[in-house]
């Protein structure tokens, strides 16, 4: 289905659409990115008052947080209200995955997905924003579709899921004329309630999508092949991760790392001076901060099967470590081994809680 743009203004059209959703009580509250403070940035907002829907920005190409993590803090305890959440594909995958680990009350969520062909690192976005031309959403989106060079995040470059699954409603720009319309996919009942005209889907959407997905998949294979060359031995790992300053940003940003407190912050990894000295004696020298590679490997051990490839870990890393790369490489193998697709199906049981008698080796 199609929503025609009101006066050719995508933002106004979206504002009106989401206001409707809230006003018509399709949801009790709406969790949605809006630009605040003069449109230079945006943040997720939880809106109860429809009049506060002024600057919704579901397509703005930045991802300050993976929304799944925010949704978890919102719905870990039953919110007892229906919450509409406007999220991208990687965020929806995070929501599904977290729900498997009881961190999200999925029953209370009305998931609204948006097409996404990539987001930018904040610095890069700032640069565009401050450039002469400034940032133009329509141009950005059409560049993404046409394949014109756009500086998007590494994770987005190889993401082959531009359209979210497991949602009740989907808004999109792929395969439509974004100067005139927005694509919407939802149930007939909802469409009627929101007064959306029932039209057949835009002809080109599927075709454009499949081209983009094929291209991204190819990029992903290349990316993995390069990584395989890069990480060959434990010393490669040690080298790459030597810069880690143990700030734990990757863990904080990871939507899957749901532990209330990381084991690395507990007394298990609190060592006494004699212990450090003993290690130094054994090895001749030890690196400080200590336990950094062990930290990444432990996180890898916990997360690899559930990693939904949002890339927030690398975006959050101040020292430019290849965290996302490592998780892609191992996650890909682990997920294949256990025939597990994280964030895909709420009924699929994560490998850690599944007993299998035999496993075919890779």
């Amino acid at each position, binding site marked *: 289905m199609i929503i025609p743009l009101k006066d050719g203004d995508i933002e106004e059209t979206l504002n009106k659409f989401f206001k409707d959703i809230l006003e018509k009580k399709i949801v009790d509250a709406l969790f949605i990115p809006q630009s605040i403070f003069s449109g230079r940035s945006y943040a997720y907002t939880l809106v109860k008052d429809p009049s506060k829907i002024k600057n919704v920005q579901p397509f703005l190409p930045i991802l300050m947080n993976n929304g799944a993590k925010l949704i978890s803090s919102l719905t870990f305890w039953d919110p007892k209200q229906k919450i509409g959440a406007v999220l991208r594909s990687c965020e929806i995958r995070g929501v599904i995955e977290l729900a498997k680990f009881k961190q999200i009350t999925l029953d209370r969520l009305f998931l609204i997905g948006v097409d996404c062909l990539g987001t930018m690192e904040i610095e890069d976005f700032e640069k565009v924003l401050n450039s002469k031309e400034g940032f133009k959403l329509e141009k950005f989106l059409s560049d993404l579709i046409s394949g014109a060079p756009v500086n998007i995040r590494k994770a987005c470059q190889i993401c082959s899921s531009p359209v979210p699954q497991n949602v009740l409603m989907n808004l999109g720009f792929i395969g439509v004329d974004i100067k005139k319309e927005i694509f919407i996919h939802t149930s007939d009942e909802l469409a009627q309630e929101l007064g959306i005209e029932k039209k057949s889907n835009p002809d080109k959407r599927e075709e454009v999508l499949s081209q983009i997905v094929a291209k991204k998949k190819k990029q992903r294979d290349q990316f993995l092949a390069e990584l395989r060359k890069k990480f060959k031995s434990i010393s490669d790992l040690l080298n790459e991760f030597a810069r880690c300053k143990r700030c734990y940003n990757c863990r904080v940003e990871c939507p899957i790392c749901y*532990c209330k407190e990381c084991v690395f912050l507990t007394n298990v990894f609190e060592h006494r001076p004699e212990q450090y000295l003993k290690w130094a004696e054994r090895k001749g020298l030890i690196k400080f901060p200590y336990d950094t590679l062990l930290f990444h490997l432990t996180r890898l051990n916990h997360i690899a099967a559930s990693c939904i490839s949002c890339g927030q870990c690398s975006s959050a890393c101040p020292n430019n470590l290849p965290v996302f790369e490592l998780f892609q490489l191992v996650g890909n193998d682990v997920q294949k081994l256990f025939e597990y697709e994280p964030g895909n199906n709420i009924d699929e049981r994560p490998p850690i809680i599944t007993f299998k008698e035999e496993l075919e080796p890779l």
Partner: protein
Amino acid sequence: MVNIIINNQKIKIEEGKTILEAAEKAGISIPTLCYHKALSPYGACRICLVEIVGGGRPGLVASCQYPVKEGLVIETDTERVRKTRKIMLELILARNPNFERAKEIAREYGIIKSRIEKKEKDDCILCGLCVRICKERMGQSVLSFINRGYERKIGSPFDKKSPICMGCGACAFICPTGAIKSEAFCEKDLIPLLSEFEKGMGTRPVINILYPQAVPNAPVIDKEHCIYFNKEKCQICKAVCEADAIDYTMEEKKGYLDVGAIIFSPGFDLFDPHLKGEYGYGIYKNVITSRQFERLLSASGPSQGEIIRPSDGKHPKKIAFISCVGSRDIVCGNEYCSSVCCMYSTKEAIIAKEHDPEIEATIFYMDIRAFGKGFERYFNSARDNYGIRYIKCMPSKIIELQQSKNLRITYRNDNNSFVEEEFDLVVLATGMKPSEEVKKLASKLGLELNEYGFCEKTDFFPTQTKTPGIFICGAIGEPKDIPETIVEASSAAAEASKLLSQARGTLISKKEYPEEKPFIDEEPRIGVFICHCGRNIGGVIDVPKVVEYARSLPYVVFAEEYLYTCSQDSLEKIKEEIKRQNLTRVVVASCTPTTHAPLFRDTIREAGLNPYLFEMASIREHCSWVHMKEPGKATEKAKELVAMAVAKAALLSPIRQVSVEVNKDGLIIGGGITGMITAISLADQGFDVHLIEKTNQLGGHANNLYFTIDGKNIQEFLKRIIEKVEKHERIHVYLNAEVKEISGYLGNYKTIIHLKDENKSMELLHGIIVIATGAKEYKPTEYFYGKNPNVITQTEFEKKLVKKDISGLNKVVMIQCVGSRDEEHPYCSRICCSHAIKNALKLKEINPEAQIIILYRDIRTYGFREKYYLEARRKGVLFIQYNEKEKPKVNEVNGKLQVKVNDPVIGEEVIFEPDLLVLSAGIYADNEELSQTLKLPLTEDGFFMEAHAKIRPLDFTTDGIFVAGLAHSPRTIEESIAQANGASIRAVSILSKDKILAKAEIPKVNEKWCSGCGICEEVCPYNARKVDPETKIAEVIEVLCQACGACAMACPNGVSQQRYFEMKEIFAIIDTALG
């Protein structure tokens, strides 16, 4: 006592001892090749040379012969000693370059090969051990040194076979090189002692442990063959036993026990296959029994699990199994079916194929009786996945081929023609029978035996004999498989417990412990107790060095060695040292914690320490036993193992085991015969029972049954049982009741039931649950059932027979396996064959002229039911086999039924037009809902899945819930009653306790940091982990936890940590291991 110094170590030792003995006492090892504790020293090998450097005439002496005297100063490892030993080793290796022990010592001295070439023809190194043992211990002197110098050798007088040689084999036993062959000196034929346990497939020594898992696991001396008991010689065992445990004066003791009940479970014997001469057992070497084959397959068997055939030790490739040897055989007097042979033959064939995939296994059978739980699937898999060939034929003879010793079997194939086939090995599946000895014992007990010699039982109660107070279980009542035997064992225990419930617990004495010392988290004081385990550890590992090392470890304030740490005197010493040294942690380095940790824990508890302030290092199983040939490295590893244990011990904290009170009431779901018998049994044992039945009457499926195959009146029995249940003051019956909700756990359940009659809910509190929900008869959708009134099920037919509503019934066709053994229900319903024959016989009784045709796949009248199969055939009931792929076809022709089936005997289709078609409808279970409520697993066939198919047939992995009757698997009334009784005693094992003590090593939860993700809940196999839905914090249901550690492993941030295996402790161990 004299004082000497060896290697700077002061030693005090009794006069008259040798230097070697003194060194051994001090833990200094001196190599030797000709010394034996039980024999006089001889000084032949000169390897034990040591150097006297003071207190006597200086020089090299043989330490095995040189007596100690005051002030001697000895060095065992000087340059001179080493040099001389090297030369002696080279000389010995020149005589026998393959002598392992000498090579091993030589390696330590840097000798790989002797420089001198071997000239002697034999392997003898002239150590004289054989000469000495024959003379000193056996008192015979058959052997002596002959000639001198270069010509010197060992031999008997005139090199002839000696008439005085007893053939004891001691010379060959003690010979270190294998050079001595007893048969060269002995006139007699040397006959090896055959192992009784290996069924003659292997040999055994005179002193032996009956079999690896024997209880008690202690060796016994076979007096009949012991030289000491026959000739008062030898006594080597006494000389070498370090624990001084040999006592020749032990006598058989007679004792008297006052008991209130007797359980008679003497087991069974196997049919003697010699009696079936046509199979040539005992004549043809390659015809063996299934039990012998079982030993061949066993890793602990005579060939360590290698399948070799007796005639030539080769691997057989074609193996034939012949079923029913001595079963279902009127000629040899055993007309009953032994119930287990089909399955064990199948099992043996599968294991043989797993050992060697090239083996072709063929099973000759009459009917495949795969009637037990899961057996049909097993049989199908054997045939379809393992490619085991099943041939329906009883071979009438076996012929051995003279050259190859292969065996030729003639049999009839599917095309009704006779074929000859050659096999490498034939295994006879011998049946079960009571032994003659047991029969005598039974008559002493005044027990009645049946026509086959098995114990008679009271009607319906398979573990009650006709003598009150004496109960039976196992194969003495009827041949049966392991699970049924285990069930009966519990059932017999329940029967006895009913009689003895008044006396329960009166003979228990309680052990008193001193108060536990308060645990103060100050610097640990660790004591390390290191065990020699006789020679087991001390013979390989340099224990004194390990002790010395242990003393250097952090927090260790005491370390000492003990010959046997687990001996009573050593345990006393541990307690003394704990007090004297004020130890706060104890480490024992010895054997495996599996067997010995409880003993040591108890010991330190007796000394006032918490039993979990204890750690063990396994320096036997993990070290000395596996590194026997590398003593140096083994010692280093032992040190590390001790260091790891000490590192963990330093971090240990006390564990107090949690206990919960037990609600003494039981809940039984299902008011059929199984539920009622469980209720009566529990109530008679003194416990209150809530019996829930969802319909409006008790009795369940038995309400539709009237008589058993052996003529017992079911309705009369049912009436009696219902009356007893209704009158029993401890049994509370709830009819028309439905289980709404069950919460809680072992010892403390809360169940909400809904009473439909009163339309109200009520709450029941109870400690255990027995599931006796039964099963249902399959409602056929095939063969015009429900469409033609003349098509009915066996149960419906039974009712007709009882009401004598059978006029005009002259021709009856029965079809077996309707709703069993098909794709939808790939299991056997066990009872339908007997049901059909029972009804057929009843019809014949009423109307002997009636023609009855039973269309079957395999007749599964196991055990004594075989008798009725035979009777049915004798009375003219016609049995026609059909196979799975060609099921009988039923048509209606002008309202008249027409049954077509292919008769394999005549090879043609036959057509019947019966007056009545009776379908043997199978049994199916509908347990889905209850299994979800209780989180209990179901089998693929929908029956409840027990904790272990063989040895825990009535339990679940979740403690406190039990299953009996048809909810478990299809079975007869008697078998259900055995399970009902059995489940009751399993329940009593919990209800009889006031409190249940949880395991110690259960997880603890750091609630503050729990994310409530529920991984622990999902991975727990015992339902012992739960996330509280209110707080979202993971809990441990302590009494259900079996301390497996799965949750602690899966918890991502260490919120759940297993006590005694906490992350800190594990890290400390790893860190120490890394050095």
